[in-house]
Structures are given as C-alpha cells and as structure tokens.
C-alpha cells in the first residue's frame, strides 16, 4: 500500500491497472482524457498487459468492451457527458447481454449549451439502462469503489455492468491523498474472472437473439432480480474490501450525524463534502442537522431511505440534475422510495450546481435554513438568476 497525492482521474486509472483489466477501449473527452491516457501509458510500458483497442467514437468503445466482456475478458472504459450519451444504445446492450463492463464516468453537463463543467445529468439520464451506478465523493472513494465495482459486476448473481462517477474538475482534476492498495491486496480481493458465463470460442454461439413476447419479459426480469441482488452483494463486497484495507465507505447510503437529527440533506457527489462541513458548523449553532449521501443510485437505497425516514422530520434533496416535467431526479426517486414508507418526513427538492455552478458552503447553509424554516416549495432551483422565479 502506498499513499500518493493524485487526481480523481488517475484514481480510476490505478484502479483499472490493479484490477488487471484485460481489454480497454476508450475515446478521449474532456475531462476524462487523463484516465485513459494513464492507462495507455501503463499498457505501453508493459506494466498492464491489456489489449488497448483504439476506436473512433465512444459508441465503438463500449461495443468493443461488450464484445470482449461477452468472451470473458475483464474490461474497462471511461467517458463523460456527450460521449456517454453517444454510448446510450449500448448501455442497454451491456446490461441486457449481462456483460460486467466497468466504466468510469466523469460527470459533466450535457449540451447545448456546451459546458465542460460538472453536472449529473449525463449519468442520471442512464438510470434506466440496467447499469449499477455509484456517485463518488472523493478520489479515495473513487479508487476503492472502482475496485469493488469489478467484483460486484462479475458476481454470478449480479452480472451487470457498473459505472463509477466522479464530478468533473472537483475530483477529476483535483489532486489529494489517496491510499493505493498493493497488487497483492487487490489480487486477494479480486481474483481473475470466471469464464463460465461467457460465449465460448470455438463453439457456435450467438449473443442477442431475437425474442418474441413469450420470453422477452422474463429476460428483462432476470435483470431486475440481478439488480435486486446487487444491493446485498455490494454490502458483502464492501465488507470484504474493508477487511482488507480498513476502509468502508458506508454502503449504499452513508449517513453523517443523522441519529439525533431532525433535518437531513440528501446529497450526491462532491457537494457531500462541503455539506458535511456545513452540518458541523450548523450543529455548533445548535441546529440538529445531518447528512445522507446517495452513494449508489442503482440499486437505489430504498431500504436505507425508509430507515432514515423513521429518524427525521424534514428531508431536503440536493439535486445536480433535473428531469424536465418532473423534478430533480434524486428527489423524485427519494419520493418514490418513501411514498409507501410507514413514516414520511417533509420532503423538498433543491436543484443546484448545474453546469458546474459552485455549490458553496453558503449555498448549502441557505438550503438547510430554508428547509428548516419553510415547508415549500416542493422543488426549487437554488440561486437562479431570474427576476421571476421564486427560489
């Protein structure tokens, strides 16, 4: 184990190397490029004996990974924003073909207007595809979660692709200390992939198959079951990882000071760190506030949210995306999870930080104070520059 001061992008690269990925195919896009450049360096220098397939687009990159994965290779790719959107058709393919591809995604706003700054819309827009989704808060968490993602994705009762996200610039280009496990430690945690569930070379097989109404639903239900299993399997995987490294990032919905809180903010990504600092400051002022981080968006932590609902009176969701016609994506899913819960706290949505607008400590504090003092509006865009919209 060695501690290095590295960027979120390099955290992904090191994880892919330590996971001994066998096939990488990727296309560069700001702000992801350094991830795959570093992996290319590892491959070129012989440190990582993987096949690096150069392609002309993200669509082809994911296709290459799906094919290789279907044949039993451990595969990795990375992208962001427009690149992820270009891959969209194949995200459905990877999940439907039950290929455990692992992908790093740097969360970046979608065009138009063109923006290179952070925003969760790109990966939120993929929540229906059957991929496991993790949202990263720190470079350490990104590295650890990527390693765990391989094991989770490849688990025989899961067999679903997984993405690990990191906020553009706030993690991708930010250097901070990261503990990098040794190859021996990772090998003990992540053995080579089992070949039993794949297409076999030399045997005539076909992946995809045209299926009529009599069986299509059942194929898709298998994915639903797998995603359901992913919940508990992930907790087991993280327990294992914690035994090895001493680090447990808190499962699907890590919480902070919620036990005696009456008001909680649900956050995703790097805004969580800032919000944690605000929780401490507000507690010093006597407010009983806490924090819950939506670490896995898929599978969605329904159970954990219902448990949280029994502890608190008011829940605010800090969304870094918005589903037009509804509300912030995290809010709508939290609301869905809590609708049939035995206890339902007041629930409000705070849409902030789109297109890289900074979510400052002041912003988070304002959201908390608003949540503490007002029951509505149900969904509001924070600090919107508008003469008409009430925030």
């Amino acid at each position: 184990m060695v501690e290095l001061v590295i960027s979120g992008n390099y955290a992904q690269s090191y994880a892919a190397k330590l996971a001994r990925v066998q096939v990488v195919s990727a296309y560069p896009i700001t702000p992801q490029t350094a991830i795959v450049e570093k992996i290319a360096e590892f491959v070129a220098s012989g440190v990582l004996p993987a096949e690096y397939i150069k392609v002309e687009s993200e669509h082809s990159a994911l296709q290459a990974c799906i094919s290789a994965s279907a044949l039993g290779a451990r595969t990795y790719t990375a992208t962001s924003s427009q690149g992820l959107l270009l891959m969209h058709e194949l995200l459905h393919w990877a999940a439907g073909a039950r290929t455990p591809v692992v992908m790093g995604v740097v969360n970046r706003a979608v065009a138009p207007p063109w923006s290179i700054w952070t925003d969760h819309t790109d990966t939120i827009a993929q929540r229906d595809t059957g991929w496991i989704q993790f949202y990263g808060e720190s470079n350490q968490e990104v590295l650890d979660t990527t390693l765990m993602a391989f094991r989770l994705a490849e688990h025989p009762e899961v067999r679903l692709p997984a993405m690990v996200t990191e906020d553009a610039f706030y993690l991708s280009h930010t250097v901070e200390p990261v503990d990098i496990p040794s190859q021996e430690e990772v090998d003990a945690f992540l053995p080579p992939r089992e070949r039993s569930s794949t297409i076999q070379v030399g045997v005539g097989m076909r992946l995809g198959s045209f299926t009529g109404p009599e069986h299509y639903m059942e194929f898709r239900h298998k994915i639903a079951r797998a995603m359901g299993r992913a919940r508990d399997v992930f907790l087991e995987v993280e327990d294992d990882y914690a035994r090895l490294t001493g680090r447990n990032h808190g499962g699907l919905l890590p919480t902070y000071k919620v036990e005696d809180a009456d008001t909680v903010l649900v956050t995703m990504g790097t805004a969580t760190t800032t919000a944690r600092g605000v929780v401490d400051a507000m507690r010093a002022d006597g407010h009983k506030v806490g924090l819950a981080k939506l670490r896995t968006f898929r599978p969605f932590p329904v159970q954990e949210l219902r448990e949280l609902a029994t502890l608190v009176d008011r829940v605010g969701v800090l969304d870094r995306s918005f589903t037009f016609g509804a509300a912030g994506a995290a809010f709508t899913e939290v609301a869905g999870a809590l609708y049939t819960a035995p206890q339902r706290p007041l629930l409000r949505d705070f849409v902030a930080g789109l297109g890289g607008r900074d979510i400052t400590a002041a912003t988070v504090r304002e959201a908390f104070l608003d949540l503490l003092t007002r029951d509505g509006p149900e969904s509001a865009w924070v600090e919107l520059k508008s003469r008409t919209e009430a925030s």
Partner: protein
Amino acid sequence: MIEIRFHGRGGQGAVIASELLAQAAFLEGKHPQSFPFFGVERRGAPVTAFTRIDDAPIQIRTSITSPDIVVVLDAGLMRTINVTAGLKPEGLLLVNSEKAPDQVETPFKGRVATIDATNIALAHGLGSKAMPIVNTAVLGGLARASGIVSLDSVRKAVERFVPAKQQANVLAVEDAYQHVVNLAVVR
C-alpha cells in the same frame, strides 16, 4: 486551513506549482487539495490554480474565493486581471518580479513580497527568455515568505515530482528561498 491561489500563463507551470505545493504539504503530514481553474486551457492564456492545506481532512470542495495567499507567476497579468480579488486583508501577495515589494502596483494593502523568479529560473537553465519556467523558483520564494511549508519539503517534492531537470529545479528553489525580498511590507 490555508487557501492559496496561483496566477500564471499557460506554460509557466502554475498548475504544477499548485500540485507541488500539495505534495510538499503532504510530505509534512498535512492534508492538501489542489486543482486548476476549470476553464479551457491553452498556452499563453491566463491560468489560475488553487491549493488548500489543512491539518485535518478538508471538508470543502468548492472554488477558492477568499485566499490567504495569492502568488503571481507573471506580473504582466496584474495589468488585466484583478489578481488580489478576495485576498484576505491579513493575507500575503507574492509576485514574481525584480521590483521591491513597495514598488509593486496593486490595490492590495496587506503584506507583499517579491521574488525575481524569472532570472533565477533562467540562471538555472529552466525554460527560455520568452517562456521561463518559474514555478519552482516561485515555490522556493513562497516557502520563505509564507512559512506554510518548509524548504526541505519543497525540495523533496520537486525532486520527486518535477518531470525533468530535477537538480536545476532544486537549485532554483534554494536560490529563491534565499532571495525573497521583504517578507513583511504592509502598505
């Protein structure tokens, strides 16, 4: 927690300077966080980079708007950019310049220090007259003027992480450490 903002031009090494500072702080057992201004980068264009240093894990992930220290790698930038925007009144402005601190044109009324990093860099063969690579010299000056990291940590960070000319860069650091001018001029 200390927040430092670096101003330079693309190619001068402002981003590397902010990262080297993070590495130096890390060697001292501190918690660093460093990142560039998140804009489109290109040679010659103004570049801003940031470093946070704290004794405890850093509980914030946002831009730095009220730095404690501002470091200017290219004094020419001060004509077009308000480099001291948000700089705390009790903070420090360090400028790469041949001038004495009281000759530096700035609205900032706090502590100013100068270091002739350009000539030090050139004396050690770092970069060219048109594009001197001043970042390591500037870091040496910063260590002395601010005391936020030791000379030894900066030396080690430079040795380990500078991609080329490690020895020349270390000498530039040491040289600059000795030649920072007027650490406590308050205007």
